[in-house]
């Protein structure tokens, strides 16, 4: 249960952070007049931001969900390791 909760928390946190940071970046880019921005890791696209006349269009791509999934799994594994760590167990006592 603890592992599942940590995995879900990691997924949600990563997703919210990615989406809100992308929105902040989009607005900032639009305000600075930098033009279009495409964030990607190799072939994995994250966000595409297209600025127009007083408007900004942001497309969330599959990379955002992949990273959130990886973050969720990593957080679950981390929580599992912590739960079995003798140091943590001693601190809980």
């Amino acid at each position, binding site marked *: 249960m603890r592992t599942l909760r940590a995995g879900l928390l990691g997924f949600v946190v990563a997703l919210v952070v990615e989406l*809100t*940071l992308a*929105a902040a970046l989009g*607005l900032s880019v639009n305000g600075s007049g930098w033009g279009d921005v495409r964030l990607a890791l190799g072939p994995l696209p994250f966000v595409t931001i297209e600025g127009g006349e007083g408007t900004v269009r942001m497309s969330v791509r599959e990379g955002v969900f992949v990273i959130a999934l990886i973050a969720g799994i990593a957080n679950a594994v981390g929580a599992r390791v912590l*739960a079995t760590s003798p140091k*943590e167990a001693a601190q809980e006592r």
Partner: protein
Amino acid sequence: MDDLCESSEPVTLTDRRRFAIPRGVRLYGAELHDEALRLSHPISPTGALVVALLDRGFTVTEVAGALSARWHLDRERARRDVDAFVAQLSEAMLLTERPGAPWRTWPRGLRAAMLSVVTHQPPRAQPRRFPLRRGSPVTMVTDIARGVLIGLGWWWLALTLVSTLLVLADDSPLAVLVLVPALFGATVAHEVGHAAAVASRGAGCFLRVRGLAVAVVHTRDAGGVRVHASGALLSAALGITLLAIAAIAGMGWLALATTPFLAQLVTLTVLFGDGRRIATA
């Protein structure tokens, strides 16, 4: 006490650190009372004497010399005992080192840096304690902002200098300048979230700054998932509100300023202390 120190023999050891009882801690007889956490720590009469002498401005060496002269102890052993006692009280934030002038403390800083190279361990920063007064939310925010500003003073100065140089030397947009106050605001919001959650449980706390790490210290009873998560959640809520304002008003610089607030959510993962405590709760 003065007689005790005056009667000590000339000091040959060189531990010139000076300590003081921080605000929010009081020495009552042979007991150190932590007013913020509402905890009492009984200590021996000799321990109380050591604390009193240190608080009056004597160095660790002078106190050890005084003890060895008074009770005819081996000076090196007295120094080790005082050192261990001071380390224990410092760790519990019941005694804090008085910050010395940089031109007087640089040899010790240099020694610590050289030691860290040999031991492959980063130098251990001295923790600083900032009391949080009980009262209105404004008082709490003011106290935390003061602690974050003073405790991380050099860090803020360096960041401001770097961001200014970036804007002047490069073609970086002026919006970069808002990142430093935004990071400061996000740090304050995070700690206010923790402190408010602790206060809502009727418990006390204080702010501790050690190196670049800022934390609200409270008793274990006052903890819980809500307290550990509240810092990141308050900061992120503020960030989302500011982001909405930036979107409505079309202010790109304000959107950029929300990034440190939103990034605080990462502290809910096991990479950070808050997340680790939540995961093991």
